[in-house]
Structure formats: structure tokens, C-alpha cells
């Protein structure tokens, strides 16, 4: 079963490689840069930045705030990354008012405000529960 899966996977990879290889002369350099660039950007920029931020910020927060802030940061951070192309409106065409036709920055601010509000509510709720269930609430 595993061997069969492995063979199927390798065959699909080989076919993909062949499709890309056929376009070698035209596109190779640029597609290689984009393929490698994504890994470099994640493994050596985004991931270390997230780790360093977490190490710097989380220990400085009060106990009750740590989990809500982490949840808020994961949600808002990943959704913001997805929104980069629309926030920058890089693909907008001046003659076409029907695409990229929202006020994305305001949209982001609303989402950020909702996230902050939800995190704040979570902190208040956790704090109010604290005296009653101290040992449960504080050991996530």
C-alpha cells in the first residue's frame, strides 16, 4: 500500500517536472526563483520572525492575556498575509473600477478592531473567572 502510494506520488512528481522542463527555455529562471523564494521567505524570514516575536512578546504579557493574544495574532496574522495582494491593490487596473473595488484598508482596520475586541473580551472573561478556578484557567 505504502509502496504503491509512493510510486503514484513519484509518477505525478515526474509528470509535473516534465511539464515544467518542457518550458525550460522560456520560464526556468523566473519560476525557479519563485519556487525557491517561497521556501526561503518562509523558513528563513517569516518563521524566525514569528518565533522571535513570540519569545519577546508573550512572556511580557500578564498570564490571563497570553492565550487570547496568541489566538488573535495567529488569526489576524495569517489572514493579513492572505490580504496582502488586495491591500496593496498591485493588480488593479486604473480603467476598470469593478475589480479590487473595495476599501481594503478600512476592511482590514475593521477586522483588526474586531480581533482586538474579541481578545479583550476573552481576557476580561478569563480574569473574572480567575479567583474561582485559578488552577484550571491558568494552565492552558
Amino acid at each position: 500500500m505504502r509502496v504503491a502510494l509512493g510510486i503514484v506520488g513519484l509518477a505525478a512528481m515526474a509528470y509535473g517536472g516534465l511539464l515544467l522542463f518542457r518550458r525550460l527555455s522560456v520560464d526556468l529562471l523566473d519560476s525557479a526563483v519563485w519556487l525557491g523564494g517561497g521556501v526561503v521567505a518562509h523558513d528563513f524570514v517569516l518563521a524566525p520572525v514569528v518565533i522571535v516575536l513570540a519569545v519577546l512578546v508573550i512572556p511580557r504579557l500578564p498570564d490571563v492575556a497570553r492565550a487570547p493574544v496568541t489566538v488573535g495574532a495567529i488569526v489576524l496574522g495569517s489572514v493579513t498575509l492572505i490580504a496582502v495582494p488586495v491591500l496593496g491593490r498591485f493588480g488593479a487596473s486604473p480603467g476598470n473600477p469593478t475589480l479590487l473595488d473595495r476599501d481594503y484598508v478600512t476592511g482590514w482596520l475593521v477586522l483588526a478592531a474586531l480581533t482586538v475586541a474579541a481578545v479583550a473580551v476573552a481576557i476580561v472573561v478569563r480574569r473574572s473567572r480567575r479567583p474561582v478556578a485559578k488552577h484550571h484557567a491558568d494552565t492552558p
Partner: protein
Amino acid sequence: MNLRLPAEGDFTSRLRSPAVAARIGIWLGICFAICFLTGLVSHYAQAPSQPVPFPTSPSWGYRVTQGLHVTAGVAAVPLLLVKLWTVYPRLFTRPPLGDVRRLALVAAERASIAVLVAAAIFQLFTGLMNSTQWYPWSFSFRSTHYGVAWLAIGALVVHIAVKLPVIRDALGGDVDETTHDRPEATEESVLSRRGLLRTTWLASAVAVLTTAGATVPLLRRVSVFGVTTGDGPGGVPINRTAAEAGIAVERTQETFLLTVVHGGTEMTFSREDLEALPQHTEVLPIACVEGWSASGTWTGVRLRDLLDLVEAPPGRDVGISSLQTQYAFGTSTLWDNFADDPRTLLALDLDGEPLALDHGYPCRIIAPNRPGVRQTKWVERIEVL
């Protein structure tokens, strides 16, 4: 400060566990499978030749598959980010240098992981950028996204094959089990494992809700990052304007003539001639390859009626040419089943008004279940092949 490369053992959070990675991996795998299959559908719908004819029904089929394609890709972004976070220490595993056989196996597995990660990030981000028509590269998006899709799905299947025993074990047990954890990964974190999983699902859900309104009308108000509000002339957005397509406006006005050709038979029609033919109204979507879609109420001449006028028998493919001079989609082929379908119109009006110039005035093709890019606008010649 002593700076050195981190080692696998430096990562001590108990969240970085195969029990977590496998649970996120399942959903990531489902998203990639949806993207791959719907991508194959889209690729086939645009293929220059089709051994099995692409169906004309349901008319909203392509709208759904392409909407799913982009939505599953968006949902996969938070999943991929958290998945990579849980397995990040593996990047710093020291290779078993002494043992040549093991080294070769480890190198092969690492290479397949490198291909998987590179292809996955490439697919999600180029796809996301393409959905906003942002092309900061020189390669052809469609053929490269297609080639890398096979790399990604192949590497994913290899990865599943390699990890199958761990995946099975991890999914069979509780999320807090530590059987497959690295010995250092014991430190409590601010979130529980369940908490991290719920946060990941929440991030994916928010990502979908804030973008999918470009194809799901119900979500328009909450999709603050949707690529279109869905507004446009006649309630349908425009992907490529007349100016962008290089349309000479004077050729769309009074002097405009549509030519319909079948062998030696050739007929020409002004827009008034077309308006004088029997008119039909169909509700059909424009479903863009970039993922947005909108439904329109189109009125015009049945393509089959025009073909009858030049005495073309049923079952013939039809070539459509446009006044368009820019971009690659100035011509398209309607396969015989599309040409003969009674819902396929040479549309003159949208939502009761004459087509806007940017929607293809004087006349355009609108057919059921067809990628928007092939719904040729500014049609000037129809030729039975």
C-alpha cells in the same frame, strides 16, 4: 551573545508534535486535493482539444469548481503556516553522516519534503496573486501553476506514503498523546494542543469568510478582502475592459458587421439585424478563471438560430473571433455541444440594457458552464469549423 544555528532539540514546545501536525495535515491534504481536482477541471475546460467533451450542464458547474478552487486555496494558507510551524524543528535535524545507506534515505526524504514545501507555498501564493490579477513574474501563470500542481500533489502523496504509520498512529490516539514526540518537546505552551487546532480552524474560517464573497453573493458584505463587490454594469463585474483589450471603439458602432460563415455560405448582420431576430433570455454566470463569479440575465440571439441561417448541421464546432487585439483570448472555439445548446446566446443585452462596451458591445458569447475567459466579447466573426 552567542549566535549559532538552532538544533532540533532547541525547540521544546509540546505543540510541535506529530499528533498536531497529522490533524492539521488531514485538512491541508483535503484542501490540496480539492484544489488539484478543481484545477484539473479548469485546465481541461480550457484545453485546445477535448477527447471527452466538457459538459454544458449544470450551467453553474464551472462557477462552483473554480470558486471551490480559490476558496480551498485560501483556507489552506493558515493550515500550511501552522503545519509548517509544528514541524519547523525538522529543518534543523542533523543528517546521519556516518551511515551512508541511511544518509541516502534521509536525503531522499528531505528532498521530497523540500519539493513539497516549495510547491505548496508556490501554488498558494501565486494562486492568491493571480486571483487579484497581480503578475510580478515573467513565466506563464497557467502552465507553471499546472506543472507545479503535479509536483505538489505528487510530493504530498509521497509524503503521506512515508509518514503513513505515524499518521495512522497519531490520528488513532488522543491529540495529547506523546508517543511520536521528540524527547525535548515537553514544555507547556500558552495554548493547549486542542487550543492551537481550534485557532487554526478559526483562522481558516475567517480567511474564507473575508474573501469568498467574490464568488458567493451571500458573503459579499463580510468579505472585506473579496476581489470584487460584484458591482458592475448590469450587475456583473468586468475582467478586461475594452481599452485593455485594444478595442477600436469606432468599429463597434454603426459600421459594425458580424460575419457568420459556413463553408461557402456567408452572411453579415448589423446590430439592428441581430435585434430583429428572435430574442431569448437566459440567466447564466460569468465564472472567471481567477475565481470571482457573478450571475447575469442575458438577452440575445440563440447561437443555434444563427447557425441555422447559414445552414450549418448540428454537431459542428464553431470558431469565434473578436475585435480584441490585445491578450491571448481574442478567439475561442465553441465545441459542438456548446454551439448546439439552446442556452448558448450571442448576447446583445444584459439585465434589460444594451451590453456595456466593456461587457462586449455590440455582441458577445455567453454559454453555460464555460470559463469566463472563453466567453468571447466584441464578437465579429462566427465560423462553422
